[in-house]
């Protein structure tokens, strides 16, 4: 099992230097810059079912975004952009990671202005690099979204995404059983609603559904072993920990309240609850409270 502790830091430093180098140019052009940070607590990082296997941890996540919108005629626009993100775990330091993504999206608006209905199709490609490099993945995501701001108070949109995370092949622990536990395909759907309380604050509600591969780092049992399509060591959670790839369906919701202290920034306080039913009778749940900050230049 490869544990290259420098990979996340190297990717982050390389991407940050490109982003910082581009900042003066971006500030004078149609490029828009954004920055953000989250403080999050996940009460079940490893997606474990048994209480003795559940590991909770808190994370700090920082991101830098750059994008440009190119209008194509009256109705269409194309957005090109990129995200640089870093995530630090308080206890599970092997999960510290940096990622770099590039996004292309085509958007159609039926009419002018903030209240015109819209639809968007997008693809993104990225690389995530972990301190424990056996978790490194190439990430591919295709999204379809559509929505409408009904008025100044109500905003509604729905999104579907297909996501593929492709990890490097690992040497099987057991001959004939795949060790590719960290590669995942999933279908995600979300319905979102925002309600403005006043000029500076709004509530957000999201209903979430996901079907596809899940990785559960948990104590092995005959049931989970039989249901798993791949398994591999997961030393980020300890010397005896194993990650199992299962097929599962997740339902959940996200609630949040957001406040803009200045026109350029947004402070958020959110709560996410997810429940997953996976093969082999493996059921687990997680709750994730988050405090977030976003800044748009």
């Amino acid at each position, binding site marked *: 099992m490869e544990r290259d502790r420098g990979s996340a830091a190297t990717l982050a430093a390389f991407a940050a230097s490109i982003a910082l180098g581009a900042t003066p140019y971006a500030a004078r052009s149609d490029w828009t810059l954004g920055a953000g940070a989250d403080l999050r607590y996940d009460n079940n990082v490893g997606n474990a079912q048994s209480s003795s296997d559940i590991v909770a941890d808190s994370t700090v996540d920082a991101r830098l975004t750059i994008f440009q919108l190119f209008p194509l005629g009256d109705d269409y626009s194309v957005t090109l952009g990129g995200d640089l993100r870093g995530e630090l775990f308080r206890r599970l330091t092997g999960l510290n990671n940096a990622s770099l993504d590039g996004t292309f999206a085509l958007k159609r608006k039926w009419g002018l202005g903030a209240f015109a209905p819209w639809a*968007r199709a997008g693809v993104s490609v990225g690389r995530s690099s972990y301190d424990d490099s056996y978790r490194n993945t190439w990430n591919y995501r295709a999204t379809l979204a559509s929505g409408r701001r009904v008025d100044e108070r109500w905003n509604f949109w729905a999104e579907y995404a297909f996501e593929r995370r492709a990890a490097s092949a690992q040497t099987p622990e057991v001959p004939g059983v795949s060790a590719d536990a960290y590669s995942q395909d999933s279908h995600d759907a979300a319905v979102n609603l925002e309600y403005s309380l006043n000029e500076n604050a709004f509530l957000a509600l999201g209903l979430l559904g996901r079907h596809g591969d899940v990785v559960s780092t948990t104590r092995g049992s005959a049931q989970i072993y039989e249901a798993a399509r791949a398994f591999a060591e997961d030393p980020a959670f300890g010397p005896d920990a194993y990650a199992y790839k299962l097929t599962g369906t997740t339902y959940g919701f996200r609630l949040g309240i957001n406040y803009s202290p200045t026109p350029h920034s947004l402070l958020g306080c959110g709560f996410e609850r997810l429940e997953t039913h996976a093969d082999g009778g493996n059921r687990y749940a997680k709750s994730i409270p988050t405090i977030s900050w976003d800044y748009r230049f």
Partner: protein
Amino acid sequence: MHRFLAAVTVLALAWVAVPSRGAALHVLVKDPHGKLIADAVVLAAPVDPKSAQRAKSPADAVDQVDKQFIPYVKAVLVGSKVWFPNSDHIRHQVYSFSPAKTFELPLYGGTDAPPVVFDKPGVVVLGCNIHDWMVGYIYVSETPFFAKTGSAGTATIDDMPPGEYTVRIWHPSMEHGEETTVRRVTLNADAPASAEWELGLKPTLRVPRVSGAGSPGYP
């Protein structure tokens, strides 16, 4: 040379010292809690329409600075030409659906956009098709006697012919229509008149400028 400069100075001081022959109206606008209201447009229409003759307004401008319309509220005389310079480093697409003026300025930067003539009285709501949170207002006035309140809630209309006027107030967030604010005011040349309005405002709702990484404003 010294005599000439002295003569010019005396003439200039005399011109400044001579009081204006027009009447003036000082207005204070506040809400029911006493909070001073900025961006309220004060409109004074002479009862005698012959008095409503004034020089044509010069061209006006509504700028775009830091992805906002500056000023937020602009009052212009009907028939005025308004330029929409873009002082941002990114391009904007200004539009309005308002019955008083429907127009669209395709994406532009700098001072490339042609001026727009506002030839019908009424309220024109401005937006940018790229930046949904950008909102601005142009009040197109039929009367040449108007002013806008500043942060102190005050506005002054001067150089008005003495006589009777119907005065009303408009604000983008006013609770009731501007017809509920109409008052008759008599102006004399010898002393400025003062009037105070109390205006109920609705809470302002705007499209959030920063909407977070998960929301549709994020490409």
